[in-house]
């Protein structure tokens, strides 16, 4: 699978694949939204405010997933010094950044009608805010450090340090008392979300993952083209 992301493959990528993915994504998100907003039932305690979950939970998953990939890419980059690995990580960062912001904003909109507050400094919310800051630090380091080698090193270190935050976010609700509820979806036990709500959640997640993939492919291709252009200019 990793072979599909090699520079030569990506550079020969035409718009057909992107457009195809775009079409599939819009279809899935439309079905997901109709299911989430109209067909799925209200929650027995929360009523209709539970529908925020269908955006909030997939956003959080993608925000964590993107940083996980950035962290792994950063480790590989520092050890093996392969250029396109760090370009992959660089292309993932804005996606994860936006989704962590969406997660925080939708969570805040969800917190007010359920908990009674927009924001609290409990372990889950705080660690999620820290993830957002890590994304900002990562993106700004690429942006404002002019020397490529230097920027590459700094961002890789940020990516690796930020990796430690991920298990803290995931397990914060189990390790400490938090206002945020525990995880409904875990690897070890059955989900505690009724299937009439789980199905639209999975559909929305799928749609948002495809969206992320599209943005990633476009960004990654642009980065590779920039690299090629730089090399050409140097040779001339």
């Amino acid at each position, binding site marked *: 699978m990793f072979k599909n992301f090699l520079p030569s493959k990506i550079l020969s990528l035409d718009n057909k694949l992107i457009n195809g993915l775009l079409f599939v994504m819009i279809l899935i998100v439309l079905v997901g939204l109709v299911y989430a907003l109209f067909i799925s039932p209200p929650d027995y305690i929360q009523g209709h405010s539970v529908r925020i979950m269908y955006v909030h939970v997939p956003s959080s998953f993608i925000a964590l997933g993107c940083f996980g990939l950035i962290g792994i890419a950063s480790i590989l980059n520092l050890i093996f010094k392969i250029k396109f690995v760090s370009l992959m990580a660089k292309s993932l960062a804005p996606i994860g950044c936006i989704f962590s912001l969406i997660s925080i904003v939708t969570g805040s909109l969800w917190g007010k009608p359920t908990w009674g507050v927009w924001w609290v400094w409990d372990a889950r919310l705080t660690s999620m805010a820290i993830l957002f800051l890590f994304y900002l630090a990562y993106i700004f380091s690429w942006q404002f450090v002019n020397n490529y080698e230097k920027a590459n090193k700094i961002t890789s270190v940020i990516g690796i340090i930020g990796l430690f935050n991920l298990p803290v976010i995931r397990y914060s609700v189990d390790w400490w008392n938090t206002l945020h509820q525990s995880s409904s979806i875990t690897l070890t036990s059955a989900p505690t979300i*009724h299937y009439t709500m789980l199905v639209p959640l999975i559909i929305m997640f799928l749609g948002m993952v495809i969206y992320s993939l599209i943005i990633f492919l476009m960004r990654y291709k642009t980065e590779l083209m920039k690299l090629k252009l730089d090399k050409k200019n140097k040779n001339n």
Partner: protein
Amino acid sequence: MLSKKVESRMIFLILLLLSATVIIFFIFKSLEENVVYFFSPTEIYDKPNISFNKKIRIGGLVKEGSLTNNQALINFIVTDLNNEIMVSYSGLLPNLFSEGKGVVAEGKLKDKKYFIADKILAKHDENYMPPEVSKILEKSN
């Protein structure tokens, strides 16, 4: 197979990650008091030195049948099924606040069994289901 340079970078990074894990673990261990958002009644009960002047948060379930609401003053009992704390509060309650459900109260302890709250937050659990399913579950219990 791997060049010497790559190998040494790898070992260095692994050592760095291991030591960082240990350091972060101890930082969180020492910060435990500040990382928890609220204390359960049992944690309050077991705590040796509690300051009664400092604002703290307690949390648990609102005990069934304990809620009394006479105009200005709201009284209820927070329980973790082992220990209980009586809570007094005057103000607005969040929508999801109800008996048998989770709650977090912010305020000051009068003593280990009595708490004056100036803010009440509702805490809900990780179960999501339609109303009909919850009714069926209740009936079968």
